[in-house]
């Protein structure tokens, strides 16, 4: 019964990076609408990349748009289509940092704790989450920055893409998958100790 697989383990299903690479190749081979499909496929992930790196919402939109425009100018520099996802993640990350430095220069904050990318965590916005999701979000927020960003982003890609995302974030391959890795392990331990997660 090799045909019977759950969607998560179905290796025949192309991963996000593979689908992106396929669209990128089609674009390069003269199919202009493939770029639009690539934009639709990866923009939600790139939004998360910009936000996880501290961009305010409006800046995140500009950063994502800017990076797409740049990709079109650099089509010939990307030799390996499968790497287009990682190229975009790195580009958004760098642009987000640049934006963050500019934002810190222009915003006076005596506590020095400006975090323009912080999600509005007032009770009203958190109310759209289930108890379990609120618990999870709080636990992720307690993790070291590198882990918080890694987990938030790998959540938006498929398992074969974890190494590409880790590398794009400057973390070693294998930071997550095929073993659990430290970040996810920390999160699981923290959740296991939280009755609101266990009982939910």
């Amino acid at each position, binding site marked *: 019964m090799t045909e019977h697989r759950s969607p998560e383990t179905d290796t025949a299903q192309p991963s996000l990076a593979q689908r992106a690479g396929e669209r990128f190749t089609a674009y390069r081979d003269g199919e202009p609408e493939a770029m639009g499909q690539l934009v639709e496929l990866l923009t939600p992930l790139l939004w998360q990349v910009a936000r996880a790196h501290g961009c305010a919402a409006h800046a995140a939109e500009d950063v994502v748009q800017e990076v797409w425009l740049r990709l079109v100018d650099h089509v010939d520099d990307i030799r390996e289509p499968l790497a287009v996802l990682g190229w975009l993640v790195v580009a958004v990350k760098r642009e987000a940092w640049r934006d963050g430095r500019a934002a810190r220069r222009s915003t006076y904050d005596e506590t020095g704790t400006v975090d323009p990318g912080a999600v509005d965590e007032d009770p009203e916005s958190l109310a759209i*989450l289930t108890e379990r999701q609120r618990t999870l979000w709080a636990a992720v927020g307690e993790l070291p920055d590198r882990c918080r960003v890694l987990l938030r982003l790998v959540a938006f890609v498929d398992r074969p893409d974890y190494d590409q995302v880790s590398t794009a974030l400057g973390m070693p391959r294998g930071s*997550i998958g*095929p073993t*659990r890795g430290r970040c996810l392990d920390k999160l699981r331990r923290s959740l296991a100790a939280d009755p609101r997660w266990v009982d939910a």
Partner: protein
Amino acid sequence: MIATDTATGPFDSTDEAVLRELRETAARLDPCPADLAERVKFALTVQALQAEVAQLTSQPELVSRTSATQEPAEATTVTYSTESLSIMVSVSREGAGRTRLDGWVTCGPAEVELDQGEHGVRRATADEDGRFVLADLPRGLAHLLVRPARGRPVVTPQFTL
């Protein structure tokens, strides 16, 4: 160390479930704006064509029109302009959820494309007076691309059909 032991354990279905839940949480709490991909695609079009983007220069207004069959029809008319040309767009309902676009460009004859995203691209030619018609269109978001006989192409922002 116990921490190291579980960190080197295989990625299992609970890990998968936690990440799935995290994706759901982030997407709910901090969703990518619904129209961001559309706006990126528009910016790419403008860049690829080295086009000028026309600005909205008149607010949408409802006008009554009398068709050839004497049935009054309502149409919404807006104007977009660049320094070199203006594009007037009049949108009216046809039957069965379809839409008709009557257009007029000040540059005289021109090739016109209506980009309706997933519904594809429809083409028309503006006549000597700059008039063109696109009928039987599906409803939804669209933008126009006008290629005048001389000068840079012009794109309009998105509007609703």
